[in-house]
């Protein structure tokens, strides 16, 4: 089944005429994603590789039956782009942009909730259901279709994990990059619930990092509701306190949000924690093998 996106996804690219937008549109089309429209204010009427470009999201949605949007828009304008998509009634919005002011996110989250739009990101690589649809910047060719769900706050670390899985012929049902910012639209817990209900998914991999409480919330949910095996890794054991480690949300603040605390919470919840990032694939393999033996 996979979650959130599949072969029925009809994608709009906001910022399609920009360098990033155009490049990743081509990659998406090559992968098999149904990109049905693009949008750049002022470029309505143009075409990118035969894909019609519109001035507004509303018009694109009306004319092309868009049910998802991906945003490649510079940070000063990205919150506005998300709002426009939500206002046009797009149910899934994936925002790749890194650098959106935190208070912009505070302002738009309630509107997204009210309109019922699911936001993935910002500052994320996107979401892929291998073999079905790819929304974002991840390299399609390292993924393979299978039964492991992946939820990650990271970008290239996610690719590393997916690579380790694919090398062991362990495929993925859906991989979601939830993003590295302090405020994101979709959390570990949202995806865990969906994976738990997904018939195609038999195990879930969580990739966390320092900062915030998303991992701790995931631990509570896993303990209470998740029956499928969960394997996890938390990046940033060696991160010094008080420093922003690249991602705006990767910061140990006032002593809170350390990797050690997150790892302890996960272990206590029954999540199999990998101490080394190089062992994640092997650990998932072991867990799946044990499951088959039962």
């Amino acid at each position, binding site marked *: 089944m996979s979650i959130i996106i599949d072969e029925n996804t009809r994608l709009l690219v906001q910022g399609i005429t920009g360098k990033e937008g155009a490049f990743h549109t081509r990659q998406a089309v090559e992968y098999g994603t149904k990109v049905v429209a693009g949008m750049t204010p002022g470029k309505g009427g143009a075409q990118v590789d035969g894909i019609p470009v519109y001035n507004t999201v509303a018009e694109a949605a009306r004319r092309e039956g868009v049910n998802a949007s991906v945003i490649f828009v510079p940070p000063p304008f990205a919150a506005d782009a998300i709002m426009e998509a939500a206002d046009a009634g797009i149910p899934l919005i994936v925002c790749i942009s890194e650098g959106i002011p935190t208070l912009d996110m505070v302002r738009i989250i309630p509107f997204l909730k009210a309109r019922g739009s699911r936001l993935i990101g910002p500052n994320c690589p996107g979401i892929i259901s291998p073999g079905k649809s790819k929304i974002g910047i991840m390299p399609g060719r390292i993924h393979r279709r299978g039964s492991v769900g992946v939820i990650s706050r990271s970008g290239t670390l*996610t690719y590393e994990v997916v690579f380790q899985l694919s090398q062991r012929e362990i495929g993925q049902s859906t991989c979601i990059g939830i993003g590295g910012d302090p405020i994101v639209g979709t959390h570990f817990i949202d995806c865990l619930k969906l994976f738990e209900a997904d018939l195609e998914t038999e195990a879930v991999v969580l990739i966390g990092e320092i900062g915030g409480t998303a991992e701790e919330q995931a631990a509570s949910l896993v303990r209470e509701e998740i029956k499928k095996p969960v394997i996890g890794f938390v990046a940033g054991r060696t991160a010094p306190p008080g420093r922003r480690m690249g991602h705006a949300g990767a910061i140990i603040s006032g002593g809170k949000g350390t990797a050690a605390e997150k790892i302890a919470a996960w272990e206590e919840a029954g999540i199999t924690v990998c101490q*080394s990032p190089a062992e994640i694939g092997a650990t998932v393999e072991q867990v799946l093998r044990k499951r088959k033996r039962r």
Partner: protein
Amino acid sequence: MKIHEYQAKQILFAFGVPIPEGGVAETAAEAREISARLGRPVVIKAQIHAGGRGKGGGVKLAQTPEEAERTASSILGMQLVTHQTSPQGVKVRRVLVEEAMEIKKELYLGVTIDRGAALAVIMASESGGMEIEQVAAASPERILKAHVDPGSGIWPFHAREIAFSLGLPPEASLQASQLICSLYRAFWAKDCSLAEINPLVWTGDGRLLALDAKMNLDDNALFRHPEARELRDTQEEDPLETEASRYQINYIKLDGTIGCMVNGAGLAMATMDLIKLCGGEPANFLDVGGGASAEQVENAFRILLSDRNVRAVLINIFGGIMRCDVVAQGMIEAASKLKVEVPIVVRLEGTNVEKGQELLRGSGLNFTVASEMKDAAEKAVKLAQ
């Protein structure tokens, strides 16, 4: 972005938050002048970004202008060491000279972001003058919290609800509720990640004011705050980190011997973690970003290698879109241009990986090619010994 206490106070004052009278001094003579102008005992406060200045000896009382001059002289230029600085401490370049006051009550007041709720939250506590994390750990019930809906914003009643729970006399509570609104407005207007008054004091002569102030500005919002960019004090930053920021390279200097260059923050942290697991110590965090162009790689190399502690370099590039032969070519150019002498372990993954590895091996430079992350970390640790 961090700013100094005196800068935070200036901002808060502009939003209507009462602050002590005083001024900033960069010399002992200036400190004496300010003290003379105030005509009463003063507190001389070292201005550095780190906290814990009092315990470190950076905050002292002075009764007369002459004493103010002597005290300022001893603090200015000192290497102030606190629990929030490195063991070497930070050089004090200016002091804040403020009227000393009789403190009847110390409170905590702050505005920050509740990430989980995706809302700004006001926090207040009667336990002022202490580290709020300690209060949160020991007695969380002593911290009052009020989330503010971004749509309707802050209303005076929000502030009154908090203010009247702080154990202040009624006239002080009314002052406090105005102050809370002012703090919140400043937080919002300046795109802060944190705006804190600790302690907020009720004085012997019936004044409520911000004895200390701390404001952290959201780096992501600086593009829309040109006035805030001018508040940046690069002397409080590690020079290599300042240099890296010029190229949009995320670099954080650490203490180890293995320099790291990685594309992606999560992968960079994971690489540092792996180095430690293999028995080594990372010299830095460095996210070279999505591009990893030849120019970026060169800039990253230069910054990495400016750290004299670096005995080996580990490069871990997971090229999603980038072609590994292009990345390798960039590395070879950079390494030969910079005449890199330390051994470099490179782990590449992505399109054309074999081609990239071949180029590195055939370059005649000190590149060791690794196949996976663990292999790369182990090799780097060995070479650094």
